[in-house]
C-alpha cells in the first residue's frame, strides 16, 4: 500500500511537471546535474527547472528528492538562482527541506581556454534534505538512512571555483567546492568534474525534434574531499554518472543520468532526471514589450 502511494505520488509529480513544461520554450544551460560550466543564463531570461534524484539505499527507504530551481540572468556576467528543496521517502513523509540562494559571477568577460566563474551560495536546509546537489566533506550513504527529521537546521555558505572550457564542441568543467556550516563546524571540501559533447556539430536545415543536434552526451564524477581537519579521500563518497540531454526545439529540456556509487561509502545506484523550461526576456514579457 505504501509503495502504491509512493508510485501515485511519483506519477502525479511527473504528469504535473510535463503539463507545466508543455507550454514552453527550450534549452537548459548545463549538460550536467552537479557540475557547473561557465555558461550563464542569458540576461533577462528565467529558467525554471525541476531537478530530481531517486534512490533506494540499502537499509533505508526509497526516496525521491526534488529541487525546484528558478534561475535568472541578471547580467551577462551574473546569474542568480533560488532553489526550493523537498523530498518524499516511502513509509515516512513528504517534506519541504529548505531553500538555497546562489549567485554566479563571471569575472573575466572574454572567452579563454579556461574560463573561471565564482559561485556563492547560502543554504538554509534541514536534516531531511536528500537532493544531493553536491557532495562535500564526509557525506556518505549513512545520511540517507536516518528517518526524515527536520529538527536539525543547517545554515551553510558554499563557495565554488568553476573552471570550464569549450573546445571543438566539447565542454570540460571542473568545480572545486568549499562549504561551511555557519555554526562552529570546519570547512568541508568537494569536487565535481564533467565532460560533455553535442551529438552533432552542425545544425540541420530542416526543423526536427529527434535529430542528433538536439542531443548531448556527457559524464560527470563528483565526491567529497574531507574537511579542514581531515582533508583527503578517507571516509568520503564518490559518484560517476553518464548524462543524456535532449533539448526539444521550442520546448522543454530533459536530462537523465544514472549515478553509480564508486566506493563503499556511496549509495550503490541512484537515478537523476531533470525537466527545464526557459522563458525568454521574462520581465519584458510581463510588461508586454
Amino acid at each position, binding site marked *: 500500500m505504501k509503495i502504491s502511494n509512493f508510485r501515485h505520488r511519483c506519477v502525479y509529480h511527473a504528469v504535473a511537471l510535463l503539463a507545466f513544461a508543455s507550454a514552453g520554450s527550450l534549452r537548459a544551460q548545463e549538460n550536467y546535474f552537479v557540475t557547473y560550466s561557465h555558461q550563464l543564463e542569458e540576461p533577462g531570461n528565467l529558467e525554471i527547472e525541476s531537478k530530481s534524484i531517486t534512490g533506494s539505499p540499502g537499509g533505508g527507504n526509497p526516496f525521491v528528492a526534488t529541487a525546484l530551481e528558478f534561475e535568472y540572468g541578471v547580467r551577462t556576467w551574473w546569474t542568480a538562482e533560488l532553489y526550493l528543496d523537498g523530498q518524499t521517502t516511502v513509509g515516512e513523509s513528504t517534506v519541504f527541506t529548505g531553500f538555497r540562494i546562489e549567485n554566479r559571477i563571471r569575472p573575466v568577460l572574454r572567452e579563454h581556454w579556461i574560463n573561471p566563474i565564482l559561485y556563492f551560495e547560502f543554504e538554509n536546509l534541514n536534516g531531511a534534505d536528500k537532493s544531493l546537489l553536491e557532495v562535500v566533506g564526509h557525506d556518505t550513504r549513512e545520511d540517507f538512512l536516518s528517518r526524515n527529521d527536520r529538527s536539525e537546521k543547517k545554515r551553510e555558505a558554499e563557495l565554488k571555483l568553476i573552471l570550464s572550457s569549450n573546445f571543438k564542441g566539447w565542454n570540460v568543467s571542473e568545480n572545486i567546492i568549499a562549504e561551511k556550516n555557519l555554526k562552529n563546524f570546519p570547512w568541508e571540501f568537494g569536487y565535481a568534474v564533467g565532460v560533455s559533447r*553535442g551529438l552533432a556539430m*552542425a545544425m*540541420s536545415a530542416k526543423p526536427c525534434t529527434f535529430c542528433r543536434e538536439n542531443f548531448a552526451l556527457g559524464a560527470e564524477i563528483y565526491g567529497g574531499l574531507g574537511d579542514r581537519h581531515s582533508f583527503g579521500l578517507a571516509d568520503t563518497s564518490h559518484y560517476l554518472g553518464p548524462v543524456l540531454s535532449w533539448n526539444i*526545439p521550442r520546448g522543454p529540456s530533459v536530462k537523465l543520468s544514472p549515478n553509480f556509487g564508486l566506493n563503499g561509502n556511496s549509495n550503490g545506484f541512484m537515478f537523476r532526471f531533470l525537466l527545464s523550461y526557459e522563458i*525568454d*526576456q521574462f520581465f519584458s514579457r510581463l510588461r508586454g*514589450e
Partner: protein
Amino acid sequence: MKARGLFLALWILTGAEMVFGEAGDGQWLRKVPAKDRSRVNPLANDTDAPLAGAKIFAEHCASCHGEDAGGKVQGKHIRPNLRSDRIKQAAPGELFWLLTNGSQKNGMPSWSRFPEPQRWQLVTYLKRLP
C-alpha cells in the same frame, strides 16, 4: 589610505560601467584581433547554412534582436538591429569573434557553447540578411 580610496573609486566606476553600459555601440569591433578578423567562413557557400542559421537565430537570438533581426527596445535596453550597415560591413571573422566572446558589457552573451560549425552557420545567415 589614499590608494585604498582610489582603488575603491575605480572599482565602483568599473562596476557601474558593467551594470549600466548597455547600448550596442560597435565598440567591440575595435577589440577583434587581426587573426580573428581575417578568418574565412568555411560555410559561406553552403546552401544549408542560411537555413540552419535561421533556426539557431529563431531559437536563441530572436527574443532580443526581434524575429526579423531588426532590433528592439526593451525597457531601457536597446537591442541592436542586425540588418544595420555595421553588420553588413563587418567581416565574417568579426561576427564569429562576437558570437564566441559576446559583448558582455553591452548585454550580448558568449555563444561559445555552440560548436564552431553552428556559429559559422549563424554568421552565414546574418550576412545574407537583406
